[in-house]
Every structure is written in C-alpha cells, then in structure tokens.
C-alpha cells in the first residue's frame, strides 16, 4: 500500500517464530539479532527510554524457577517496548494447588497472550509449550538445557570488544555440568566461529562437552594463558546435596579454579565476564569482579537491549 514507508528491500528474512535455544538458529540469524540489538541499545540512553512498538502485545512471564536478573531484564525490555506484561511465579500461584503446566498455559493463553517467556527446571518445557499454545515462546532457561538470551547477551558483550569473534579464544570456567549458560554459549560461539575451551574440576565436567565442539582443560593457568575472554560461572551451591559434593571445599575450589588478581597480572590480555550472580571469593576474587578488566555490569545493560531485539523480532508481522 504505502510504498513511502518501505525501508529498502534489504530486510533480512528472519525465519523463526520461537526462541527455544540457539541450536535451531544459524550463525547469520544470531548475528542478525546481535546487529539489531545494537540499535535497541541506543533506546536505553534516550531521555524517554521507551518506544510504543509492542503496545498492542501482551506478554506473560512464566517463571517456575527463581530468577532476579533474567526476569527483571525481560520485564524491563518488555516495558521499554510498551508491551503489557503479566508476571507469573510458581511460588505464588495455583501450581501450589496442583494445576498442571499444560492447564496453566492453556488458561493463560485463553486470556489472549501474544508471547510467553518461560523459565522452568525441566529441560524441554519451552518446546512442549509450543505445542500447547499459539503464542511465541521464548526460553528463559530450561533446566541445564539452554538459556539462549543469556548466551546472546554474552555474545553481544564480547562483540563490543572483538567485533569479529572468529578465531577468538573464549574460555568458560567453573561448574560446566550444571550450567545451561554454557551449552547455549558454546553453541552460539562456535556458530560465530570462535574457539571455546571449558575448564573446571573433573566432577563438574559433563560427558558431552567435546561432542558440542569445545576443548576441555583442567588447568586454569593453561586456560587463562590461551584465552582472549574468560567467562567464570557461578558455583551453584544449591545444586550440591550433602554427601555428593563435587569439590572438597570452597576454599580449595577458589585456590584451583578461582580467578585472582595474580592471574590478571600474569596474563594481561584477557577480559572477564560472568553471567551473575557472582559468588565473591569463590569463582572470582572480589577485586577481580570490580576490576576494569571485568565487563560484568555492561553484560547486564546489554541484556535488556538483546532481549528487546528478540521480543521485537519474534512479535511477528503476519501472525494475528
């Protein structure tokens, strides 16, 4: 109709309806989201950091597992885009009364929801939801499976330092087995051409990592000497039951796998990242987390921009 409004013919054909994991996304899909996020980042610095783009959309945040950062970040992204937001957390809802996931989502979707952001402790829940409802589903973490928006924001933050990640060395250090961030990050990094090494105690190293295409190391010095970017992971103390601890003591873990000021002096080039929340004095020495080599806080800011880009791209044109 109104040809005047067309913004050129070079629009990238973004082929996805959901974001369940980075496995289904190609390298160019990922790069497209990151490029778009760049333009959303600018909105956050405006005097009125709000645009009306999603004002006709209703989004439900379905959080079956606790989360502060991810939920706040999603909610902020949604509100910055003018969407209506409904929050649902399992601890204060009818899940306590025994309602099944399928019934919950069906009920919510009959209230005319356009998008669902879901976090759940079981892998595959987002995928299951795509079969129950018509809305676009965004995975905000499912068990130890994937956490695609976290990986995207990590990639975005890395590209602020190295615009071309191909051939760059990225080390992921810590509790590899329990981390969904790792899986999504490895998949995304490899698709953008980076080399990935995971490093951690043997007890925290899952069997499949090499199959994903990452190198494995058990020596932190070796890893830090090799890498351009070191991403430390949180030691998930809540996932270690008594009697089946994965390492003898926090003190010993810190001595063997914690990043310290000494490492920063010895290897002057690498940048430090952390998906948060940081256990100070465990995976990172406190001063390391606050040093100018750490980009932890800019990761958080970037998270909002990346999530805005994802929401925008999945909000869709033709689906009514």
């Amino acid at each position, binding site marked *: 109709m109104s040809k005047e409004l067309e913004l050129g013919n070079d629009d990238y054909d973004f082929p996805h309806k959901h974001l369940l994991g980075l496995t289904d996304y190609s390298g160019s899909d990922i790069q497209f989201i990151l490029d778009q996020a760049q333009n959303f980042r600018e909105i956050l610095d405006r005097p009125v950091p709000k645009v009306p783009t999603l004002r006709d959309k209703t989004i439900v945040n379905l959080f079956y597992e606790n989360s502060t950062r991810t939920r706040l970040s999603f909610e902020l992204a949604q509100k910055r*885009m003018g969407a209506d937001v409904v929050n649902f957390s399992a601890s204060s809802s009818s899940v306590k009364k025994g309602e099944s996931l399928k019934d919950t989502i069906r009920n919510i979707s009959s209230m005319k929801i356009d998008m669902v952001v879901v976090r759940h402790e079981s892998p595959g829940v987002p995928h299951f939801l795509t079969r129950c409802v018509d809305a676009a589903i965004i995975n905000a973490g499912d068990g130890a499976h994937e956490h695609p928006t976290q990986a995207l924001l990590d990639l975005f933050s890395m590209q602020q330092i190295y615009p071309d990640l191909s051939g760059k060395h990225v080390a992921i250090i810590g509790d590899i087995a329990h981390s969904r961030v790792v899986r999504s990050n490895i998949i995304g990094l490899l698709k953008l051409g980076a080399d990935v090494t995971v490093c951690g105690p043997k007890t925290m190293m899952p069997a499949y990592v090499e199959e994903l295409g990452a190198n494995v190391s058990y020596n932190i010095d070796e890893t830090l000497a090799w890498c351009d970017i070191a991403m430390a992971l949180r030691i998930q103390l809540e996932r270690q039951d008594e009697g089946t601890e994965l390492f003898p003591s926090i003190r010993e873990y810190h001595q063997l796998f914690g990043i310290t000021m000494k490492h920063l002096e010895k290897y002057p080039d690498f940048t430090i990242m952390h998906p948060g929340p940081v256990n100070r004095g465990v995976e990172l020495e406190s001063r390391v987390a606050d040093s100018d080599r750490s980009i932890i806080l800019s990761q958080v800011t970037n998270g909002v921009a990346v999530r805005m880009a994802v929401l925008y791209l999945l909000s869709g*044109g033709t689906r009514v």
Partner: protein
Amino acid sequence: MSAEDLNRTYLRFAHQFLEPYDDSTLPALIGMQTRGVYMGKRILKHVEEEFGHKLDFGVLDVTFYRDDFRSKLKMPEVKVTEIPFDLYERDIILIDDVLYTGRTLRSAMDAIMDYGRPRSIKFCCMVDRGHRELPMAADYVGTTLPTHVQEEVRVKVKELDEEDAVYVVQNSDEEEE
C-alpha cells in the same frame, strides 16, 4: 530528475534552511533512514561550502513508531538512530525523500518528541507526490509530482543506488521523469 537537477535543489535547500537565521541560532538537521540521511549529508555539505557553518546533524529511524509494520510480512529491520545533540529549544528540520501518505512523518514527530521538546519542527522532502492520509505538509519541497497511486517514486542516492536521480516507476516498468 537528473543528478544536476538534484544538486541544484540541494543547494537551494541549503539557502532556504539558513535564510531566516542569524549566525547564532542555527537549525539542526535530522535525516530519516535511509535516503533522507544521504540527502541531509548533501545539504550539510552545501551549507558548509556556502556559509562556512557546520550544522548539527542527527539520524532517525522510525521503525519503532510506525503504525503499519504489523500488516507486513516480516518485521522491518531496525536501523540506527543517532541524535548527538540536545533537541531542547532547537529548530529542527526533518529530511526525507518522498512525502506520500504522511504516516512516516507522523511517526517521526512522535519519535522526536521522545527525545526532547524542540522549539519547532520543519519538514523537507525531495518529492511531494500527493495522496495524503494525514493532515501533513512539507515546508521545503524539491518538486511536486502529481502521481497515480499505482506508481512508485524512487529517489536514488549515489551511496546506495550508484546514481543521484528521481524516477517514477509504473508496475516495475522504469521510466525516467
């Protein structure tokens, strides 16, 4: 229109923009993505050559404010917005290639208001082709072309299209105007 015609028009815009101003209070230009940005740069260059002034220049993408993107097949790509100066109490001149329904212009004004409260906004376009759907008018017009709705007006810029020209295109048969 040929490259020389367009260049003369850009030169005229440069003079028209500065006509009402003393040196102290110069207007700021904002080019609208995509073609308006390149038009803005041309005018900027003329202003500098003719008057020795460097005007503030910003780039605006109105994708977020459009009212029609849901009716399209895919989500339009978001382009860069960069307004590196304070809009407050400034005279703003918005620049775009074609004025048609007026809907893009409405989006642009909404967007600008979110950046601050300018003293005034004026609008400059290369081609006014009629068929307005909203009560909008341009303050500076390159040329007025009476068109048919089936026709399409294409303003070309060298940086993207390898030439400076304006075409009226009919059902994808290209004809020069």
